[in-house]
């Protein structure tokens, strides 16, 4: 991976980060920090690993095969519900990216218009729940919408015209693709359609290590923050880095996507540090999942699934 570009001082400690998906704009800060040697500077030799499927990162994290996993807030809650001792130590993206997307040709302008239509999802239970919530929020009975499990072929499914809309695509990725393809997509982020907001992408580590050696994690977050600044300063350069890490990524898309994502990476309250996780939001979302039967145990008891103590200027 890109990590090998910088000659590592012997002191540098190997630190494997498993991404949530193949390298894309969401990971720009990480790759920027690697490329600029920010991690080196704090003695970390960070190596990103691309997973085969979306639950893998947390499993391998809990199994001790990687030092950090990039995952989704819902997945973290599920993992803890299953008893995995993992904790989120920072948000890479502060808002839901998951959106309801429909091609322009479908002539759909609101969730309500999905009534009687076919909607494609990735077959992930909590996304199904999101669909139902948004429909109910729009006053449509979920029974009147036909859900189709299209796996990860969300865009092709839409292009094939076999589904009116999909839930599961990201407004900063699939939506951008479609726009670049002049498909004039309608994009409704789930949190704007009745689903409580949550942090789409979070950095997850093992609980015991969060307790024990916070040093590395704190250092990691600092370096990552610098990486984020670098991306903000030079998005084009960041896009190049992504393409370098993932040759099958398309630079134009990555750049577009990076620029769209930058605002979402910032905490709503500017006084909060980069990576901030809003406790109330987490609680609300956890309860939403619980109320939809996605979680077995009541999330309100026990240790919080996240901690901000490793963010710059936090903790201690």
């Amino acid at each position: 991976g890109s990590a090998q570009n910088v000659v590592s001082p012997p002191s540098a400690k190997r630190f494997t980060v498993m991404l949530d998906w193949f390298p894309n704009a969401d990971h720009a800060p990480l790759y920027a920090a690697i490329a600029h040697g920010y991690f080196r500077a704090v003695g970390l030799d960070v190596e990103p690993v691309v997973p085969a499927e979306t639950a893998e990162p947390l499993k391998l994290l809990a199994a001790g095969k990687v030092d950090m996993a990039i995952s989704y807030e819902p997945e973290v809650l599920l993992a803890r519900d299953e008893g995995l001792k993992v904790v989120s130590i920072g948000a890479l993206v502060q808002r839901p990216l998951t959106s309801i997307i429909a091609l322009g040709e479908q002539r759909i302008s609101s969730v309500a218009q999905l009534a009687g239509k076919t909607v494609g999802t990735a077959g992930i239970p909590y996304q199904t729940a999101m669909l139902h919530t948004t429909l109910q929020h729009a006053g449509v009975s979920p029974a009147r919408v036909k859900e189709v499990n299209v796996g990860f072929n969300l865009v092709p499914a839409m292009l094939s015209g076999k589904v009116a809309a999909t839930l599961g695509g990201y407004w900063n990725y699939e939506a951008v693709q479609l726009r670049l393809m002049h498909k004039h997509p309608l994009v409704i982020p789930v949190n704007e359609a009745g689903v409580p907001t949550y942090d789409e992408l979070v950095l997850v580590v093992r609980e015991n290590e969060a307790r024990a050696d916070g040093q590395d994690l704190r250092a990691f977050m600092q370096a990552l923050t610098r990486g984020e600044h670098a991306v903000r300063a030079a998005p084009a350069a960041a896009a190049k880095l992504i393409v370098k890490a993932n040759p099958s990524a398309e630079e134009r898309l990555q750049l577009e996507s990076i620029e769209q994502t930058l605002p979402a990476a910032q905490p709503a309250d500017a006084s909060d540090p980069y990576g901030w996780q809003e406790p109330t939001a987490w609680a609300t979302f956890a309860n939403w999942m619980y109320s939809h039967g996605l979680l077995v145990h009541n999330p309100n008891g026990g240790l919080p699934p996240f901690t901000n103590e490793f963010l710059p200027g936090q903790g201690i």
Partner: protein
Amino acid sequence: MNAARDAFAGRDAFAGRDAFAGRVRAFLPAMLLAGALAGAWELYADFSGVQQDLLPAPHAVASALWSNGGSVWRNFTVTAEQVLLGLALALACGSALAIAIHLFPLLRRAVYPLAVGSQAVPIPVIGVLLVFWWGFGIFPKLVVIALICFFPIVVSTVDGLAAVDPEQPKLLRTLDASRWQAFRFAELPAALPAALSGARIALAVGVIGAFIAETSTPSSAAYSGLGREIIDNISSGFQTPRAYAATVVLFAFAVACFYALALAERVLVPWHARRRGATA
């Protein structure tokens, strides 16, 4: 030489066991071995410290199977239907193609390489296209399974047809047999055993195919097959035991089909099955 005698005797036993009881006895060793392996797995899962969600212990799988029996069963029926229909499709197309290839050498040279290459086409690449053409029904899935299964059948059958004693066609020629009759009387029966091994391979590949088909083409049904159930339980949430439960069912299904085909062989090519046991 003891080894020799045992072996010869063993082959007899193998050929001789036609009674049902005998067949059950024949499966005993497999069951014992399976039991032993399950035991080892249980111990490993319980005491090696590997987590449930990486490798659930057999008992966890069993309970998952028990508690989700309903949905597993429904998904199983879906998958079984797909596999069997897909396999039938593959058998029809595969053997037809093999025969054509055998009878018309030009065809062999024209079509065979493409048939080979077709195997290299990843289903996800064309999955969407299939849906675009045929929608969310079962048909695209059958096409996927057939696409993956037909090749073993073609190769084994073509090779089997080519392996006939070269003197036989000579004889049939002097009996004024047409090419087709030479094929029907000499080559086809001679190739049947090979074709059947091809079918057995195709069956095993077909189960893989069903998994690929289900996971790479969209489906609208609530129960859309064991493959989908497995991938959903794997790729989100931490339902690994359920995924393993579904896998166990697939496993049993494959074994059952395989031996069903073995029986079919005894019926279709008795001379062969018997020859197997004819030694010593």
